C-alpha cells in the first residue's frame, strides 16, 4: 500500500530531524544510508542533481570543518598560523565533528531528494488544510530544481550553438547569472498565469481527498518514535 504524502513528509522530516539530533556517527550514517537506498530506487536520472548536491556539500563540510574548528588535543597535522583564522591544525576530534556535520548535511539533503522525487506533491498540497499559499510556494520551489537543471542544459546548448565553448568552472559559472534571471522571469510568468486562473480568490474549493489509511497512521507513529529516540538515546 502506498504511503500518503503527509505521513511520508512527516517520516522524512523525522529522519532528517533525528540526523540533526543524534550524536553518534553510526546512527547518522545509518540514516543517511537508508535515505540513499530509497533515493537510489527512485527518480532515475533525475536524482543526479540531488546526489551531487548532497555529497558535494557533505564533502565540503568534511574538508573545511577540521581546518577552521579549534577542538581537541590529539593533533594529527599542524599547519601554518593564518591571520584572522589562527593556527591551521587538524585533530582527531575535529575530524569526528566534521564527519558528523557532513553526514548530517548529507542525510538532510538526501531526505529532501526523496521528498522531491518520490512524493506526489499535488496530493501533498491537497492534503494541507492550512497555509495553502505557503505549501504551494514550497511545492513550486521543489520543482525549481529540475527546471533549473533543464534550463542550465538548454542555456549551455544555446551558447554552444553560437559557436562559443562552455567549459570548465569559469565557463559554466558565467551562465549562473543568466540562469537566475531566466528563473525569475519564469516565476513572474507563472505568477501572472496563476492570477489569471483565479489563484488567491476567496471561496476556493478542492477536489475530494482520500482519507488516511492504517499504514499512514503507523508511519506518523513511527515518525514520532524516531524523533524521540534520536533526541533521547541516539
Amino acid at each position, binding site marked *: 500500500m502506498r504511503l500518503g504524502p503527509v505521513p511520508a513528509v512527516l517520516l522524512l522530516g523525522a529522519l532528517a530531524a533525528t540526523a540533526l539530533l543524534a550524536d553518534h556517527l553510526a546512527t547518522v550514517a545509518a540514516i543517511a544510508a537508508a535515505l540513499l537506498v530509497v533515493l537510489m530506487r527512485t527518480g532515475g536520472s533525475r536524482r543526479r542533481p540531488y546526489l551531487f548536491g548532497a555529497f558535494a556539500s557533505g564533502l565540503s563540510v568534511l574538508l573545511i570543518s577540521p581546518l577552521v574548528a579549534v577542538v581537541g588535543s590529539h593533533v594529527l597535522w599542524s599547519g601554518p598560523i593564518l591571520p584572522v583564522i589562527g593556527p591551521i591544525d587538524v585533530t582527531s576530534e575535529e575530524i569526528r565533528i566534521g564527519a558528523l556535520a557532513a553526514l548530517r548535511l548529507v542525510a538532510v539533503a538526501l531526505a529532501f531528494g526523496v521528498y522531491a522525487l518520490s512524493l506526489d506533491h499535488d496530493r501533498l498540497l491537497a492534503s494541507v488544510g492550512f497555509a495553502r499559499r505557503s505549501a504551494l510556494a514550497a511545492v513550486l520551489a521543489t520543482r525549481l530544481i529540475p527546471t533549473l537543471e533543464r534550463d542550465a542544459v538548454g542555456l549551455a546548448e*544555446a551558447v554552444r550553438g553560437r559557436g562559443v565553448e562552455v567549459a570548465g568552472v569559469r565557463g559554466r559559472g558565467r551562465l549562473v547569472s543568466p540562469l537566475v534571471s531566466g528563473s525569475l522571469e519564469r516565476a513572474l510568468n507563472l505568477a501572472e498565469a496563476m492570477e489569471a486562473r*483565479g489563484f488567491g480568490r476567496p471561496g476556493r474549493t*478542492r477536489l475530494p481527498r482520500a482519507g488516511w489509511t492504517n499504514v499512514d497512521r503507523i508511519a506518523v507513529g513511527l515518525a514520532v518514535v524516531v524523533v524521540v529516540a534520536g533526541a533521547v538515546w541516539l
Partner: protein
Amino acid sequence: MSFTYPHAGAPALQDVSLSIDSGDVVALLGPSGSGKSTLVRALAGLVPHFHGGRFSGRVLVGGRDTRDVRPSDLAGTVATVFQDPEDQVVMGVVCNEVAFGLENVGAPPLEISERAEEALATVGALHLAGRRTTELSGGELQRVCLASALALRPSLLLLDEPTSQLDPVAAEAFVEAVAGLGVAVVLSEQRVERALAVADRVVFLDAGRVLFDGGLSDGVDWLAVNRPEFVASRDSASHLASASGEPVVQLDDIAFAYSGVPVLDGIDLVVRRGEVVVLEGPNGSGKTTLAKIATGLLTPGRGTVQSRGKACYLTQDPGRYLVKERVDAEVAMGVGGDLGRARAALDRVDLGWAAARHPRDLSSGERERLGLAAVAVGEPDLLVLDEPTRGIDPERKRGLGNWLLEYAADGRGVLVATHDQAFPAHRRVRLGAQEVSLV
C-alpha cells in the same frame, strides 16, 4: 483604452476601442511587438493590475470594469492561454493541473473531476490525464493549458499564440476545436492562415493602434491591400531549383535514442552549399534531434556525420536563453565581442534600434530575431535553425526566408526544422509519419 508599460517610452496600446460579443471568434493580427499580447492581457485584467504602468480608458468584461476587479476575480468569466505553456503549469499531474483553476474559482468539489476530464477530452488529451506535466512535450502541454482554460467554461477565451508548438495537423484541429465552442474567442496568431480559417472577425494592430476591425471577408481584403504578406503566407511553399554545391554536412544511417527510446533510426541527410533544406514532421518525429546531430551538439548512437566548416544552431525558444545585459553584447558573444559585427547583424534582423536595450525587455518575436542574429553573426558554413518562425509575423517571416536563400547563395548551407509548410526551401525532408489529431 491606452496603456504604457512602466519605464517604457512609447505606449503599448493607444486609443483602442473594441467590442466583442458572445460567439465572436476574433483573429487578432499584427506585426511582432504591435501590442497583441498586451491587448490580451488588458482583456484579462492583467494590464494594469499585474504589470503596473499608465492606463487610461476602461475595459468592461461581462459588465465588470477591470480597474475595479482583480484578474483572479475575472477568472471563470475570462480564461487565458499564454504563449509559453511551460510557464503556466502549476501542478505535477495533468488532471490536477486542469482542476487547479476550477478549485480556485470555487467549482463544486464533486464536479471538478468531471469537468476536468470533459475539457481534456475536448482537446484530445484525455489520455494524458494521469501523466506528469514535467514529462509532456511542448505540444502536449499546450493542449493541457487549453483544457485548463476550457474547464472554467469561460464567456471569453483569450489565446496568445496557442499553437506555436504544435505541428500543422494538431494545430488545425486545435483551432477548430476552439472555434466550435460557441464562446467569444480572441485568437492572437502569427500563423495567419490558421486564425483566418476559423475567425469571423479580424482585428489588426500596429504600433499599439487598431488599424482594422471588421468581418472576415473585409479583413482578408484589407490585408490583401494593406498587409499583403499576411495573406500571401496562405500560399503553399515556394519551390526552388535544387542547388548542387559540395556537402557541408552529410549524415549516413543515423540512429539516436533518449533513455533507450528510439527517436531516429537509419536516417540519411545531406545539406549542400548553396541550399536551404527544410526538415518537416509531426511533434516527436526527431527534427530537433537530427538538427542537433547535424550541428555536432549531439552524438548519434549509430551512423556517421561528416562536417565541413563551422556549424551554428539556433535553439527552439532562443528568447529563454539570453546571457548578456545588452542586445548588442548578446550578439557579439558569437564573434569574440566584436560589437561592430554584432550591430551589423542586428541591422539585418531589424533590431538595430534595440542594440542598447536589455534582451529580456524585447517581445517574444523580437527575441526570436535576436537569437537568429546571435547565431548568424559568425557566418557559419552551416546554419541550423530550429523553429525560427515561431512568434515571427508574416512580413518578417518572408524576409527571413529570403535572407536565408541569400545566405545559402553565398556558398553556405542552411538547415531549418519547422512546422511551417510555407517556408521557402530548395529541398524538404520529412521525418516520421505519426498522425496527431484532436477529438
